């Protein structure tokens, strides 16, 4: 039934208009949606990179063109011209040859076609015949005949084909006779232009032109780009360094190179990010490096969201407030709290090393990380905190079992109250008088606690008394000994060494400690006289192990006389401000002590019981109990061996996975810092108790971490290490596994760090800290600063780079067990460390492994020189030639001149040195030990020219060999060694 328009409720015309408008709106919005989906930041970067690459390629083309030898090109072009006009003269021959080639080609094509046709029928017939014959069919004979006919036909064509090919060869030779020269010239021109042509081709793909450009634009157009776009997400899928998404591990899919397009390419070192080349292609990303991108990707080290292709979503992490601000402006950066592995800021990238390079003393090429690790080793964080990679370490503080025999209770109280007040460079942190204990009554409570600790240590420790000194030493001689014999490799005496303003700036943490890190291994001796009892010093410097069997203080083999002198000197090193007990805090009132002890006891028992227990105790007993509770609360046993606390577990948080800790699990309190874990770590390290600020807590519940006075830099380095201690589990195949050689080196490195070898020796490219103090001695003796620096090497302990290459393992073992002087002119002594056999072996092995020498045994295939060779050797030793004895000692015979010009005793060489090393040493000493005084006799560029011509026919190799063999016969010749008989 038709309905009239005016019967509708609504106006149809208006609805139609409305419909049209909304449909157009929908279309536009759809377009917008497609554009929004299409328009991605990374496409912009890829386009920008193509432009950059085009510019670069164009520049390279210009450079390549300029590099072409123009004269060569011109002569080739002239030759081409000439050859072409020569060919022109034989145009008829050329046309004839070309015509013949064409007709031969045609014939070859047709015969070849026939051949292949017949071949297929022949093969089929052959099969039929074979089947028929096998089945014994009667048709076999007929089939064989047919097959043979085809076979003959086939053979005819094959022969014909060979004939044609031969004729083709002749025709081509005829053609070449005419135009060959021109072709050669053309080819040479191409070769000359090859570089430019290659670059041009690259430019064509990078910046196509004309139709190609339009085609590529079409491929990348919206809605077309599903086919084969050139703008593509670049990714590497890495299942060997997976991502833990809590329920399972999934392969990492790093898409960083979608924007960081030049990360794996050289030549973009100066480009703006994201197009910069990786700064260390030798170590990372590069295919030949230790961490190629196709195995490790990017985020396994840098962290960040692997699958993201957007600046913010990749969780880039700014390195400084300025960078943060710049990123907020440029990229709309904001912190993404939803990704648990935010990218490591640039300065802390090394934290990423730790998850694979675990538990090693040193990660190669990671200087910041190594310094952070060294700080942890030195300050002993692992005493209170369990830390992966630092299990089973020795405690870093001195053993306190016999401390009462070493110093006075008054000094102990003063020290515990504030170690830095007595010795600002001390590693011992401050526990008392910190900002979270400054309420009324806190000072007195802490004084009672300190008194308790002192009482506990005195009461519970071993009672040892030392006999009086056997005589009187002379302080001046003692000072000379302390400053020359080697003490200063581990100990500084900063009040002698540094101007007061430098010390003050260091104390206020405004400047780094100017004393070398290694020389802070032992305590600074500046005020040691105010601390130690003379009898104790005398005993200690002579035989440290008798006081503490685990001490790392070595024995410098001081005589009684020397020990007395040293004692006399050290006693003079007093604290100027030390007027006895006045420096110590006043003793707390007994009520304060009782109140504090009551508070401790009431944690576990009713106040009544606690009071009853206190009532039955004497004052001393109360002090000791309070001391025990205080030591328990502050965990002093984390660093010190304290009687009664040998088995106590560490009191701090486990830090093994601290780097993965979510900031929600950290208490920021009222401290105004960014709510990120690294910011919290840094704050905690700088000011450990600041998070108590504004909180209400009884003293028992307040934060206990002591104040270490780390500098900004140290706190940043420690934060870096903490960030590296993540819970990420890397599959074994990707973890750095040490080879047996690396393990030996590693074990040696650890021993050397534990015994501070770098305090005296340069090894692993660092150390030799004692030179600081030796140079000072030289200046004191009247040298200028520059002179002292120039000669200090002559008085310094030897450099140990290449030591494994240089010396024989047997000798090194013996030497480490019982050092005997090699360089008698040195005042500084190699101490006796009292290494166990295992430790000594480990050290010798480490030196051998470091230089890829065999360990422990080796043959010495040598024959003593005789006759002409012996005469040649003796002649080369004379002043006319190398004049060896002018510097080298020969047993008891010393060279002339000042001792700093002397060189080691050659009569020891046969037992000490590796023979091949001696030869290489003579050949080029500077190559083995840059800066050595040993003269270079053979010019490394021209050994034959610089060798003495009149010895052994001027053959440098033979000369060196003879010298070496002769050196090996010096001293206790042979001593039963194979091949070394006289």
């Amino acid at each position: 039934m038709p309905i009239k328009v005016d019967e509708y409720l609504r106006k149809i015309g208006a609805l139609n208009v409305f419909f049209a408008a909304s449909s157009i709106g929908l279309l536009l919005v759809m377009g917008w949606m497609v554009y929004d989906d299409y328009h991605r930041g990374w496409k912009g970067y890829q386009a920008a990179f193509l432009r950059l690459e085009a510019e670069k390629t164009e520049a390279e083309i210009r450079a390549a063109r300029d590099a072409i030898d123009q004269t060569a090109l011109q002569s080739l072009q002239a030759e081409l011209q000439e050859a072409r006009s020569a060919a022109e003269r034989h145009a008829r021959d050329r046309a004839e040859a070309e015509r013949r080639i064409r007709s031969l080609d045609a014939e070859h094509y047709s015969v070849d076609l026939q051949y292949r046709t017949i071949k297929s029928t022949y093969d089929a017939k052959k099969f039929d015949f074979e089947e028929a014959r096998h089945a014994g069919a009667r048709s076999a004979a007929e089939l064989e005949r047919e097959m043979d006919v085809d076979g003959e036909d086939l053979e005819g064509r094959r022969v014909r084909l060979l004939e044609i090919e031969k004729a083709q060869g002749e025709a081509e030779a005829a053609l070449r006779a005419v135009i060959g020269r021109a072709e050669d010239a053309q080819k040479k021109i191409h070769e000359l232009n090859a570089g430019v042509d290659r670059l041009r081709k690259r430019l064509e793909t990078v910046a196509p032109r004309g139709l190609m450009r339009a085609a590529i634009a079409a491929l990348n157009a919206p809605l077309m780009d599903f086919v084969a776009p050139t703008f593509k997400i670049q990714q590497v899928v890495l299942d060997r360094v997976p991502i833990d998404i809590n329920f399972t591990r999934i392969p990492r899919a790093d898409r960083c190179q979608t924007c960081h397009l030049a990360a794996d390419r050289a030549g973009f070192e100066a480009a703006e990010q994201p197009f910069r080349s990786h700064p260390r292609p030798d170590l990372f990303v590069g295919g030949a490096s230790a961490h190629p991108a196709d195995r490790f990707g990017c985020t396994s080290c840098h962290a960040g969201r692997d699958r993201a292709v957007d600046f913010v979503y990749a969780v880039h992490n700014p390195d400084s407030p300025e960078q943060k601000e710049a990123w907020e402006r440029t990229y709309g950066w904001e912190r993404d709290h939803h990704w648990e592995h935010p990218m490591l800021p640039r300065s802390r990238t090394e934290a990423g090393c730790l998850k694979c390079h675990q538990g090693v003393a040193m990660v190669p090429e990671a200087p910041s990380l190594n310094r952070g690790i060294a700080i942890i080793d030195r300050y002993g964080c692992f005493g209170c905190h369990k830390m992966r990679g630092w299990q089973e370490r020795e405690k870093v503080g001195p053993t306190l079992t016999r401390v009462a025999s070493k110093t006075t209770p008054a000094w102990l109280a003063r020290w515990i109250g504030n170690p830095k007040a007595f010795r600002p460079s001390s590693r011992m942190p401050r526990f008392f008088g910190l900002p979270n204990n400054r309420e009324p009554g806190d000072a007195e409570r802490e004084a009672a606690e300190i008194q308790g600790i002192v009482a506990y240590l005195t009461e519970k420790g071993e009672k040892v008394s030392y006999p009086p000194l056997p005589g009187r030493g002379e302080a001046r001689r003692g000072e000379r000994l302390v400053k020359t014999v080697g003490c200063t490799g581990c100990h500084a005496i900063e009040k002698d060494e540094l101007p007061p303003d430098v010390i003050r700036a260091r104390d206020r943490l405004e400047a780094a400690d100017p004393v070398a890190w290694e020389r802070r291994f032992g305590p600074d001796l500046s005020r040691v006289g105010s601390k130690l009892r003379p009898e104790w010093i005398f005993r200690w410097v002579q035989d440290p192990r008798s006081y503490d069997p685990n001490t790392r203080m070595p024995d410098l083999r001081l005589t009684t006389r020397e020990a007395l002198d040293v004692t006399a000197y050290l006693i003079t090193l007093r604290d100027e401000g030390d007027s006895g007990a006045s420096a110590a805090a006043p003793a707390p009132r007994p009520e304060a002590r009782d109140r504090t002890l009551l508070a401790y006891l009431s944690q576990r028992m009713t106040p009544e019981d606690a009071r009853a227990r206190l009532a039955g105790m004497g004052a001393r007993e109360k002090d000791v109990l309070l001391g025990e509770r205080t030591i328990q609360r502050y965990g002093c046993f984390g660093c010190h061996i304290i009687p009664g606390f040998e088995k106590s577990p560490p009191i701090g948080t486990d830090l093994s996975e601290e780097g993965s800790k979510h900031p929600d699990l950290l208490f920021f309190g009222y401290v105004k810092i960014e709510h990120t874990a690294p910011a919290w770590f840094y704050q905690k390290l700088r000011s450990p108790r600041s998070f108590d600020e504004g909180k209400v807590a009884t003293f028992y519940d307040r934060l206990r971490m002591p104040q270490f006075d780390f500098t900004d830099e140290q706190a940043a380095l420690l934060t870096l290490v903490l960030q590296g201690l993540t819970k990420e589990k890397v599959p074994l195949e990707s973890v750095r596994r040490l080879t047996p050689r690396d393990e030996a080196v590693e074990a040696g490195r650890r021993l050397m760090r534990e015994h501070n070898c770098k305090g005296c020796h340069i090894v692993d490219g660092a150390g030799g800290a004692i030179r600081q103090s030796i140079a000072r001695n030289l200046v004191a003796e009247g040298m200028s600063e520059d002179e002292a620096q120039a000669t200090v090497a002559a008085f310094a302990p030897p450099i140990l780079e290449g030591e494994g290459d240089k010396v024989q393992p047997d000798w090194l073992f013996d030497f480490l067990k019982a050092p005997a002087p090699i360089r008698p002119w040195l005042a500084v002594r190699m101490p006796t460390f009292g290494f166990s056999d295992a430790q000594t072996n480990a050290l010798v092995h480490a030196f051998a492994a470091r230089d890829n020498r065999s360990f422990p045994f080796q043959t010495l295939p040598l024959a003593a020189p005789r006759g002409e060779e012996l005469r040649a050797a003796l002649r080369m030793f004379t002043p006319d030639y190398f004049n060896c004895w002018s510097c080298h000692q020969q047993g008891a015979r010393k060279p002339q001149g000042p001792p700093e010009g002397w060189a080691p005793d050659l009569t020891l060489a046969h037992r000490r040195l590796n023979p091949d090393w001696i030869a290489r040493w003579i050949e080029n000493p500077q190559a083995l030990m840059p800066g050595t005084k040993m003269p270079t006799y053979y010019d490394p560029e021209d050994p034959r020219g610089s060798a003495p011509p009149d010895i052994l026919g001027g053959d440098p190799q033979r000369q060196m060999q003879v010298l070496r063999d002769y050196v090996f016969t010096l001293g206790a010749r042979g001593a039963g060694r194979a091949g070394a008989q006289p």
Partner: protein
Amino acid sequence: MAFVDQIKDIVNWLSSPPRFFLLSVIAFFAVLFPGELGPAWLRRLTRPLAAIYRPRVAAVLFGFLGLLFFLSFRDPNFLLIVGKPDNVPIAAMIFLVGFFVWYSLQQGRLNDRLQESGQPVVEKQEAGDPKVLVWPDLVYTEFLCMILWTVFLIIWSIFLKAPIEEPANPAKTPNPSKAPWYFLGLQEMLVYFDPWIAGVLLPGLIILGLMAIPYFDTNPKGNGYYTFKERRLEIAIFLFGFVVLWVWLILIGTFLRGPNQNFFGPYEYWDAHKLVPLINIEFSQLMWVKLLKMPLPSNPMAREIFGLLVVGAYFLVLPRIMGRFWMKRHYEKMGPPRFYVMAFLLLTMLSLPIKMLLRWTMNLHFLVFMPEAFFNI
């Protein structure tokens, strides 16, 4: 600024759950029945509220609320929570639900007035005679709405990104952990009831109850047109269940429940370290220990006897009283079987606000607490 801060403090103070809930219930009934409930003074007091059903007054009120809402975006804490992409639709829901509830009630009252004066209802007037055609009057306009709605959704999806968070971690759940918005009402119930009631029984009863409505409510009036007067109780019960016990709980769960499921005012910072006292008192402790000064009996049945009696009385005795006194008219109209089923469902619904009030006022944990049998009410 101090003035604004004071207002914010007042709003935060009013947003504490017991206050906010009581205010909401009072406002709900006052607006639904302006000048109609309670003693004479209360009627006089609430009568002016009827003005809200005048479109102009309502427009001003909505405008004012919207203005307040948008001004609140100047507060960083408010913006942080309300401005989250996944909370935007819930914020919109406040206004949408408000508007449509208002619109239906306003139309119902309009029709009531028309019918009182003997005129046909609005729907009748609009439709005319013959009736309105499905095509084009209905389908065409629906189609247009569909197109415009698609346009709106696309624009929304361009501007607000999908709120994707970190990979799920069983060792570290998000704080607060929240259900999807449409389940936040259920999650809120978990605060007051044992999971088997809040998560299984009550949702089941909600569905059963909705299915049962046609069998309880056989009143044919109101079909095809809005009305209020002809179905006052039915509308009141439904709207109480829907607006107060469902939508309101979703809003609470979205905007006021912060870390650790603590309550936060709309202008308050969601501090994960905020501590509020959490005390659980069992009804049995209240009766035995506090009232009778006796230790708890070891037999669970004996221990929980008071709770069981209260719950039994609530579901068994109360319906009878309702039928005899308060809802006599309905009892007579529906007959005992239907009335008692209806009464059970109604009481179950009302048990939620009752339990909430007990929880807030007395820290009451459970009326019946029998962990031995996994039975807690």
